[in-house]
């Protein structure tokens, strides 16, 4: 088990290195000059040039990448071009909000998604099943920015119960978590339904029923446990998706999280900040994937990591 974890952690290194290179190439090939954006729209050529020199943007690309990687190996993500503060510090002031939003959303997603999936699967092709699946389709297909705006309209305008934006108190997290959680619970509900249906027709379930085990126990103990593997996978994947989804949601709800910081940094062509954030999110993603894999063995004893 331990050797497996070590092996997996070592495998992360080339992955993250690849991410850093790809991200560097992509962000540098986007047209637009950070020096010009920082110097201001009306800046003269000389002003732009002086900003370039100050930020080291006039050096050749390979040199810039080399110094970026050198810094990275020392655990230094560089300084933001915009605020001239260390990128890591910028990330750490915002990340707690994003992770809170993500965790709340995952909780909502799991509760709603599992419940809806079980509701559907226990009475397949009934009205209940069809209605639930219709809602899950709604969840999958509605854009978060639209749904978010609608919720703001309802809960902060027509019934002024919740603030329309910000991220200082718990009340600021309610609407955005509901938006993110509900929109991804659709996928989970469908998956739960199909994997339960797959299990429910297997012999051991028939045996359990024949033995006279209560239907509730059949569903919750025998079926659900065996249907959990794909569900855990999707929860792990959704966790990453939600980190990504936070980008839009945070913008709609004016939250000062990592997602909105990425957007602002891209608009400003703040290379170090964008690279740092992407690398940071990628690391989280990889770690969560590992945790998901480790969860499998807890759920299914047949899976062993050597």
């Amino acid at each position, binding site marked *: 088990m331990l050797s497996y974890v070590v092996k997996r952690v070592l495998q992360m290194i080339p992955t993250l290195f690849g991410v850093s290179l790809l991200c560097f190439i992509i962000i540098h090939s986007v047209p637009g000059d950070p020096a010009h954006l920082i110097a201001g729209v009306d800046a*003269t050529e000389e002003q732009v040039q002086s900003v370039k020199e100050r930020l080291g943007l006039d050096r050749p690309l390979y040199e810039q990448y080399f110094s970026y990687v050198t810094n990275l190996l020392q655990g230094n993500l560089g300084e933001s071009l915009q605020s001239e503060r260390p990128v890591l510090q910028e990330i750490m002031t915002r990340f707690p909000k994003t992770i809170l939003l993500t965790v709340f959303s995952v909780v909502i997603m799991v509760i709603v998604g599992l419940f809806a999936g079980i509701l559907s699967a226990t009475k397949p092709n009934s009205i209940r099943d069809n209605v639930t699946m219709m809602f899950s389709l709604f969840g999958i297909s509605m854009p978060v920015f639209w749904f978010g705006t609608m919720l*703001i309209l309802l809960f902060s305008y027509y019934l002024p119960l919740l603030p329309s934006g910000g991220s200082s108190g718990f009340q600021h997290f309610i609407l955005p978590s509901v938006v993110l959680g509900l929109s991804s619970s659709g996928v989970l509900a469908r998956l739960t339904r199909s994997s339960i249906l797959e299990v429910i027709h297997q012999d051991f379930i028939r045996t359990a029923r024949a033995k006279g085990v209560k239907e509730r126990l059949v569903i919750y103990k025998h079926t659900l446990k065996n249907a959990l593997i794909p569900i855990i996978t999707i929860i792990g994947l959704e966790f990453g998706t939600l980190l990504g989804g936070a980008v839009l949601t945070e913008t709609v709800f004016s939250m000062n999280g990592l997602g909105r910081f990425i957007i602002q940094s891209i608009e400003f062509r703040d290379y170090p900040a964008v690279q740092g954030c992407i690398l940071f999110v990628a690391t989280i993603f990889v770690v969560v994937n590992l945790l998901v894999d480790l969860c499998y063995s807890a759920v299914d004893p047949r899976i062993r990591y050597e």
Partner: protein
Amino acid sequence: MRWNQAGKAVGLMLIVLAMILSACGSNQGAAEVTEGKGMVITLKGDPVGFDPQNTTDTISSLINYQIYDRLVTFNEKMEVVPQLAKSWTTSEDGKTWTFELNTGITFTDGTPFNAEAVKTSFERVADEGENLSQHSLVGSFIDNITTNGENEVVFHLKAPQGAFLGNLASVASSILSPKSIKENEEGIAKNPVGTGPFKLKEFVTGDAVVLEANKDYWAGAPKISSVTFKNVPETASRVIMLENGESDLMEGVPITEIERLSQNSELVINPIKANRIAYIGFNTTVKPFDQPAVRQALNYAIDKETLVNKLYDGRVTVATSAIASRTIGYSNVGSYPFDMDKAKQMLKDAGVVPGNYKFRLILAANVVQDKPAAEFVQNSLQQLGFNIELQTLELGTYLETLKAPGKYDLFVRGALATTGDADPLFRDALLSTSATNYAHYNNPEVDKLILAGQAQFEPKQRLESYAKVLELVKEDAPWIFLHEDMARYGISKKVEGITFLPTYIYDLRKAVKN
């Protein structure tokens, strides 16, 4: 019982997350702004910094306007009035300006304000080696500065400077504490020290800037305890926050919302004529825009009355010159009347067959207010038979594109006179040697007049030079002149006493919140 193990595993994941969370440090993670009793204003973004000599964006200017004072300042009619200086005199040749200062004023760090402080402040922006972004506007003309005792400061200019007083009234000429300059120049962008009515309390990037009242303000302590500038990028959110009382003020109320918000008994919608002309620039290096007759024809083809009345609900006015009417140097040279037949005839005479051309009209995505105008122009030119593709580009890409004359044919831009004077505008957009003259307009006579007007300090003479510039520019038509813009403020009725300037800046010195 494996189910319990699964539960444990999931629990473990959550615990790990919680650990990550707590590792992020709850104290710095809680970087969050507490709002005292005061005003809340929503803005589209963050300021770039608090160094007025090194920032050019409107948001930074607006906030720095409250933190610093200037020797002179603009009133709402854009007239120059005394602020830190009591009075001033100009020498015969216009190269020497002497300012008599008010006494008994201190900076918020306790440093006394005097002639020496003014000298230190301006020497910083005048120093070419400092590379400050406002050097060209307010520093480059200064030869040297001398002081006569504590309360008299003398500016010696390299050449007479017509716009000098207007430049001194712009935010770029704010007086910085000499102590802050000497101790930590880099730090000014984060820790500004001025003599103004407000002090910076905290700034959380992406979230808010909080200013607190300077109770010892020399011109009378502000009536509001604090001002919180919240960064809310979504216009819809800004409108909702204004409506449900989360904020007291916003700029840029969407035209479509004005009617509805006007009926709200708790709000006032206050449109302020802005010193901005919206225009479509021709890339005069591409055919057929190298011919003045073609550019004039296209000006005739735009029905500006319909544009301002239908698309902008009559809330903006037709431009009557290349600069807005409240700008120093303005004169009314009239606009091109709408005459489609004439436009077609002129194109014919110039030998232009519209169907043979396909033009790219570029627009920066962040200037939302110009989009309807851009679409209107696109439509009007299509009626002439041209193929026009409107490309809405993100700001960075837009600026990049403008640097490459081969990549655009027409562009949407605004001419905003931030210093209230025509001079920087002319030198930015119409002078043939300017890097930001994206129309690549080149008329030696206009160049001569712009530089002459810059050096004339007799207002009458300057006006004459500039009137000729505006005449020639109208004649040459490097732009399609559209309309004079409006700033559209939504204000809570609880708030009074704000002075709005035509430069998208407002003064909170006398603001009251009930």
